[in-house]
């Protein structure tokens, strides 16, 4: 079913805004059904050019399904979608040449070396990056002559990313790119993503890792049960910016906590009650994780 631009019925609550023609990705009312279940259930979203957008959500929330509709792998059952101005259902070679896709499943086993794989991939695109430079960018230069199947898990994932960016995409999809990385590899990956951002690449990233979303994303969307429950900058997600701070200290040998919207004044007042330092003083805002767990735990 496609939405027709008919006048809204009388009493319609809120007519959906039209697709944003300038956005890298524009989605209105996206629905994808598996059997009688809506895996994606009415998602609206605009992702601007140059933006890094992170889609957060538990397993089975609809992250990968949404992304695979945008990539053209799955047909949607409802709503309107534009990716770089094109409906993915009609996306041809020229459209695909503008995209880079790092699938959750990754690339398959190969007998080709990393450099050979990148050279072959580059040959499909009109204006590819230099394969050797891409290997450098993902830190696999010393593995250029190694066959794909001999790489470690983290190295393979970096090869997947290399294959995704060698075509010089304007829009890069990264579906759980760092699953299975050790902390060191994850930090290297983050700096790779930042350097791609500096080159002007728009990115849509799905992840389980809240620190990753907070570290990389300009905006975060939380999806659960097929619905996008909130979109915000990471620091404001779930009203984090305005949430009361929790002040905690020790007084008379007892741990005390207080919630306050004015932690500075509270601590100043607290300071007058103690001769020196306030024992074990701590001021905390809810972490992204606190906010996120509350969001996805809450049955919609």
């Amino acid at each position, binding site marked *: 079913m496609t939405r027709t631009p008919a006048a809204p019925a009388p009493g319609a609550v809120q007519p959906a805004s039209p697709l944003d023609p300038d956005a890298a990705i524009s989605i209105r009312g996206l629905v994808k059904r598996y059997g009688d279940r809506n895996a994606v259930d009415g998602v609206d979203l605009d992702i601007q050019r140059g933006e890094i957008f992170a889609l957060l959500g538990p397993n089975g929330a609809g992250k990968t399904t949404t992304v695979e509709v945008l990539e*053209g*792998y799955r047909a949607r059952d409802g709503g309107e979608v534009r990716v770089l101005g094109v409906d993915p259902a009609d996306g041809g070679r020229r459209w695909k040449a503008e995209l880079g896709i790092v*699938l959750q499943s990754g690339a398959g086993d*190969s007998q*080709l070396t990393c450099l050979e794989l990148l050279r072959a991939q580059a040959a499909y695109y009109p*204006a590819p990056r230099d394969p050797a430079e891409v290997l450098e960018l993902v830190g696999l230069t010393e593995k250029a002559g190694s066959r794909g199947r001999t790489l470690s898990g983290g190295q393979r994932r970096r090869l997947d990313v290399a294959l995704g960016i060698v075509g010089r995409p304007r829009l890069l999809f990264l579906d759980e790119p760092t699953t299975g990385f050790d902390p060191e590899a994850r930090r290297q990956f983050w700096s790779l993503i930042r350097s791609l951002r500096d080159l002007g690449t728009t990115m849509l990233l799905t992840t389980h890792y809240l620190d990753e979303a907070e570290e990389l994303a300009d905006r975060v969307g939380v999806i659960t049960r097929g619905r996008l429950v909130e979109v915000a900058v990471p620091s404001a997600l779930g009203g984090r910016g305005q949430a009361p701070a929790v002040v905690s200290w020790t007084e008379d040998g007892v741990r005390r906590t207080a919630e306050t919207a004015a932690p500075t004044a509270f601590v100043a007042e607290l300071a007058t009650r103690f001769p020196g330092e306030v024992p074990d003083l701590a001021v905390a805002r809810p972490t992204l994780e606190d906010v996120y767990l509350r969001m996805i735990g809450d049955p919609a």
Partner: protein
Amino acid sequence: MTMTEERSLPSIAGVCRTRAGVELKEFFRQRESVVFTLMFPVILLLVFGAVLDYELGSGVSFTQYFMAGVIAAGILGASLQNMAIGIATERSDGTLKGLAGTPMPKSAYFVGKVVQVLVVTVAIVVILLVIGVVFYGVDLPSGTGWLTFAWVAALGSAACTLLGIAVSSLARNGRSASATVTPVALVLQFISGVFFQFSEVPTWLQTIAAVFPLKWMAQGLRSVFLPDALAAQEPAGSWELGRVALVLGIWCVVGLVLCVRTFRWQDRIDR
């Protein structure tokens, strides 16, 4: 949307060349595929040629007869078995899905596969002929024999390649494709007159074999390697080259239709 730099897409011919290179490296660097597809018929020829050293009559050695069968079996391996297992593997490990997300023209993938089948088939045929001539004194076909050889091999290879691509869609992954296709191929080889004379196969098995392309490939190739006197031992009393062309042609059409209707670039999404 503004297209800042409207560079043209790479030519389809260029991408086809890239894919052909990829497919050849993938095949020849994988020990399993080289051993099973390339060396298996060679080993068969060496073993059978050494063990079964008898005459069929009319002064024709068994190896002369076996030459046609083992080449047909080699073509079957390079096309049907190779495609069914290779593509099922690439589908289950995400290689195909990855390619489908690139601007690679889909046709280039199949061109690459066809080049792989072609090169492997030629390699098998040449190795088998050289071994046959050098070790077992096999008489090579002459004149129009080569022409028949060429069209039977080409048509049989085309039919089996298309069937292999179609069969790959039935398998869950490469391993299950191998477990299904390998025994079927072996049974077909036994009932299609590869290992011993087709006339010795029970009639009802001959009838079953006659449904599939291998029997017709082997029969067409026998017309090339054996003297016409032995045509009398064929079920119809002749080489039936017209029927060989017809059956292999029908399998090409059936295979093509099945490919077009069943080919998938990703695993089934059954969620």
